[in-house]
């Protein structure tokens, strides 16, 4: 496998409703920024990979068909990736593999979601015949598993509110974030409405319109590069008897493979910043454990000690994360791009000082698809 690097990143100004642009215009806002960041033009792009969450979210079957012109894919290979909420991450991994394998020299990865055109809560809760209609969107799906984590880990209630307050404050440092709440506090999060007990309103990701793009290249271009040191994808069924929904096997397996490939033996010491897919606050400690940053049952202690703040031992979601912007299909690629920005030194006000190794992580479906990469400032 030959080395590959992220040489440009771009994203939209995420918002609840981007009524000023079409889907194509939304994608191009991110693409144009990524290509300018990389200093490349359309003839420099060999292939395009598009990621987007389920088609029911916008009601467009196979949007890659009508977006081919806008994505600059005419006359080039265009692939669409489908892995539910993790799709942005999987899109980054697929694009990386096309370069690492030597098939293409430079690949554009794009992911988007225009949540304002539909209603994801509706789309995830369509009642099918013969079943009990108790489903209540992603929050309703994940809340029981969050409750199980709290019970198993013996975690104090305020840990979830701490994550929410931190990520929203970080979002205020990110010019592209949907939610910017510099004055949010643990107390104000705690006072917010309980939506899917134990998940409060302020502990829940917003519904966003947005897109993200990265250019992945075999050789550096004009600016800095984030070298892809490892990638991992793993999958497991949504349900099976004895399934651990709090600490899924697929996530543990993906992390183990990722660290091994990256040559990392002690992730907590060797990773300088992590962009982890946290759509509901408690998933920060849950994924810290699943990823192997801490032992099982100990993740919340890292959060509680303030070590996941910018300036802490492992800054988690310095960009504000999914809790500050959630264009679902793009959210995973945003994690991957933000990790790259940290090691490229281009993260601006939410830059982690001296970041040389960073993690990008995404999960999707019923915690069944996992995608992750490790990027570093040094060529492997």
């Amino acid at each position: 496998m030959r080395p590959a690097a992220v040489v440009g990143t771009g994203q939209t100004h995420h918002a609840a409703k981007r009524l000023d642009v079409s889907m194509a215009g939304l994608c191009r806002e991110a693409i144009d920024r990524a290509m300018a960041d990389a200093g490349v033009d359309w003839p420099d792009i060999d292939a395009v990979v598009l990621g987007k969450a389920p088609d029911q979210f916008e009601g467009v079957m196979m949007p890659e068909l009508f977006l081919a012109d806008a994505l600059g894919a005419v006359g080039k290979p265009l692939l669409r990736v489908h892995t539910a909420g993790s799709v942005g991450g999987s899109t980054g991994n697929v694009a990386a593999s096309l370069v690492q394998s030597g098939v293409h020299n430079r690949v554009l990865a794009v992911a988007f979601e225009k949540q304002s055109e539909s209603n994801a809560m509706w789309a995830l809760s369509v009642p099918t015949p013969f079943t009990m209609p108790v489903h209540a969107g992603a929050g309703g799906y994940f809340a029981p598993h969050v409750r199980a984590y709290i019970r198993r880990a013996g975690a104090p209630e305020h840990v979830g509110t701490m994550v929410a307050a931190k990520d929203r404050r970080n979002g205020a440092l990110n010019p592209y974030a949907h939610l910017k709440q510099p004055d949010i506090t643990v107390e104000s999060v705690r006072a917010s409405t309980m939506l899917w007990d134990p998940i409060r309103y302020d502990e829940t990701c917003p519904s966003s319109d947005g897109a993200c793009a990265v250019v992945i290249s075999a050789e550096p271009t004009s600016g800095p590069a984030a070298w892809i040191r490892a990638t991992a994808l793993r999958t497991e069924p949504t349900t099976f008897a004895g399934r651990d929904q709090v600490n899924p096997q697929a996530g543990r397996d993906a992390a183990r493979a990722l660290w091994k490939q990256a040559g990392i033996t002690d992730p907590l010491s060797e990773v300088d910043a992590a962009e982890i897919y946290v759509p509901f606050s408690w998933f920060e400690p849950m994924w810290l454990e699943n990823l192997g940053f801490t032992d099982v049952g100990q993740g919340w202690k890292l959060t509680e000690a303030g070590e996941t703040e910018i300036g802490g031992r492992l800054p988690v979601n310095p960009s504000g994360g999914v809790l500050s912007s959630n264009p679902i299909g793009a959210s995973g690629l945003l994690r991957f791009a933000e990790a790259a920005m940290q090691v490229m030194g281009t993260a601006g006000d939410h830059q982690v000082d001296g970041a040389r190794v960073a993690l990008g992580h995404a999960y999707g479906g019923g915690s069944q698809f996992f995608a992750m990469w490790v990027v570093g400032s040094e060529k492997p």
Partner: protein
Amino acid sequence: MTKPLSAPLDVGFDYTRSLGPTLGRFLTDLRRRKVTGIRGSDGRVHVPPLEYDPVTAERLTEFVDVASTGVVRGWSWIPEPLEGQPLDRPFAWALIQLDGADTSLLHAVDAGSPDRMSTGARVRVRWRADRVGAITDIECFELSDEPADEPVPADEVTMVTTPVHLHYTHSASPTEDPFLRGLMEGRLIAQRCPACSKVYFPPRPACPTDGVPTTEQIELSDRGTVTTFCVVNVPFLGQRIPPPYVSAYVLLDGADIPFLHLLLGVAPEDVRMGMRVEAVWKPREEWGPTMQNIDHFRPSGEPDAPFDSYSQHL
């Protein structure tokens, strides 16, 4: 084998589309009884206008007025129109090259009979009276050598609504079928995996862990344990149960996997992991092939199950 149970499933949503500058201009002009194209890098005029050039991928900005008259470049006769098509009587789908355009637009021609259709036929737009800024503002095309109606003023269009409705017949799998027929008799039918011995309720065609068919049927009681739960306080579109309600994972005694159901008969703040519950069935005359025969679960009054008894089901 009897035919598996099936039921209609209608899925519909009024999706919205924010148009952006190019498509917004096109649909605004349709509302004004005017057709607008856009010039590509190779000089061709695209109708409808493309947002990005198919050759260079650059954004296109040079709008070009084209005529509301044109020529049929190809067509296909639709003897029996379907729901949602432009006309409710037989018509032709046609590729129409408007005068001044270099590409063809797909639309309907109200020709009355396929005998009157031909490639090369002249057509003109029949404008809808109540135009909203949509492709259907062109009601259809009609065979004519004459010019179409003149443009009129109208307000700008930035959004459209595109209702999508899908009508499915949802069929139960051969494994689900006996389970559903059991429910019609108030019985809870599970199946055991021959390899790992895990008991699945509802049953699956195959064990997800071992990949082998599950054939051994087991009847379970309607009592179980709440493994975990959430309190749904949030209202949303399409919701069937008014909030707040407790959505609980119930592990039936003898089963190895919990399922989601409704928990009532207890204040949400008093629900606990490990709570013992029993099914409350609807009146027998309301039973059908559905888990909704169990109206809800309620606390059984038994002591809570110890955490270790269900911790491997979380």
